């Protein structure tokens, strides 16, 4: 049920983001979802891609610091209060969300949200027990 995300360290200077996307584009890697967290000095680019092995190797080749992180993709009912339901469930179990961002594609009628939890496995168990749909990585990479 884990989804593999790659994270890239980038300095806050012009052209770095463009450089990452250019390298991935030339390697034929398709970006499925992304989020950028930044400070005044640096940023962390988080990506879900269709071919993470390739993405990681081409970026490393070009000298970027890249790491792999396990995240969770959850289907969220596309209506008011949909996200709130999930967050309340997790809060009730004392599971913390480190960060989250939205997936570009929809899954049928539902939106997809990517979560990074402090306790990934317990979060998945909890969500499944409460009847939420947690997406498999393989399905997501190809969406």
């Amino acid at each position, binding site marked *: 049920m884990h989804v593999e995300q790659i*994270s890239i*360290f980038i*300095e806050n200077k012009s052209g770095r983001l463009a450089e990452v996307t250019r390298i991935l584009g030339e390697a034929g890697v398709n970006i499925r979802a992304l989020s950028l*967290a930044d400070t005044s000095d*640096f940023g*962390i680019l988080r990506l879900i891609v269709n071919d993470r092995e390739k993405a990681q190797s081409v970026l490393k080749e070009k*000298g*970027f610091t890249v*790491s792999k992180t396990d995240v969770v993709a959850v289907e969220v009912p596309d209506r008011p209060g949909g996200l709130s339901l999930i967050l309340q469930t997790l809060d009730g179990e004392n599971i913390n969300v480190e960060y989250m961002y939205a997936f570009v594609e929809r899954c049928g009628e539902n939106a997809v949200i990517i979560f*990074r939890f402090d306790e990934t496995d317990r979060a998945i168990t909890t969500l499944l027990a409460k009847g939420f749909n947690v997406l498999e990585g393989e399905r997501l990479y190809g969406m």
Partner: protein
Amino acid sequence: MMFNEEFETLPRPALEALQLKRLQSMLARVYANVPFYRTALDRAGIRPDDVRSLHDLQRLPFTTKQNMRDSYPYGLFAAPLEEIVRIHASSGTTGKPTVVGYTQKDIETWTELMARTFVTAGAHKGDIIHNAYGYGLFTGGLGAHYGAERLGASVIPISGGNTKRQIMIMQDFGSTVLTCTPSYALFLAEEAKSEGVDFRNLKLRIGIFGAEPWSEAMRAEIEEKLNLTALDIYGLSEIMGPGVAQECYVAKSGLHIWEDHFIPEIIDPETCEVVPEGVKGELVITTITKQGIPLVRYRTRDITSITYEPCACGRTHARLARLSGRSDDMIIIRGVNVFPSQIESILVGIEGVEPHYLLIVDRQDNLDTLEVHVEVDERLFSDEIKVLQALSRSIEKEIKDMLGVTSRVKLVEPKTIQRSEGKATRVIDNRKLV
């Protein structure tokens, strides 16, 4: 005006005769009491009795900061600890400071030389001396303090920091003499301006500035902004502290080094040979009256030149040119001595940190800033901002704890810092001093 006219105007033959007598007596003391010097002199094949002229000084071995570190803490003391009444220290390269001890007589000498220094700068009894040098292990605060009292001036032991209160006290107490680092003087000026305080309405007349390099351009700026006469002071804890040399207000051209207590030499830092008068080189000082920790030919690493030309003020003591740099890679940040190797040893001590770093020194709003660039490789990298920020904070804290200097750590991409090919560029100093 002079504090000790007899000694400050000794004709050179008499001054040199006094230097030789004191040099011989000091050498006999260190040979008898300091194993380091006994070994060093034996190895150089020279005994204290062999020194018959000041020229023989050149046959003596040098003392370096490394020698002091190797003798940490008391190894170079020539007086027993029960005779030591004060201990000061300056920052060292591996977290261990360089320690100096003073006997009662050393404190009296220092006090007199600092009083001479104040008078040389134009201060006198009745002045209110606002002493903003730091009090503590650093020699600046207490050194200037004792000299000010000996002079009979009123000393305000304000120490560093709390700038708003400094400005209020300067105004309300009627300070006439300011002692601090030149960059802090400019910072005071900026703060005063933003507080709506005009230095033309203050009583400040003289500023005695040192403990970091500065320039004639900075002097002009300070004099204009603070409405006072700005003079240069030189000192270092290894030799004594502040008051080793002072620029006179009469000529405002070079710093008189108190030759009845210190013998200066200028050497070529590469060949270690003494260079002719007026030629730039590294300042080497021999202390000839100190009892606690006398030093033979101490290599200060400060670059200057010396002149024995008579001075308009009437003093016969030689003058050093404004200090123009270092013969090693030491940088001075807000009066704190920092060696790049100190930063390096802190970085390698942190799990996962590569010793590839770059120090960027700048001056913003008249205060020195230190930025440390550290590469983020896979062992350090986390995809959570807070983890990376905590890493930066922890490096900053280590640097502050070990070196006493505030820095800002900037994480940069791997392989973006130049790799060492022989001598790597570890420091970029953007402060405009010339």
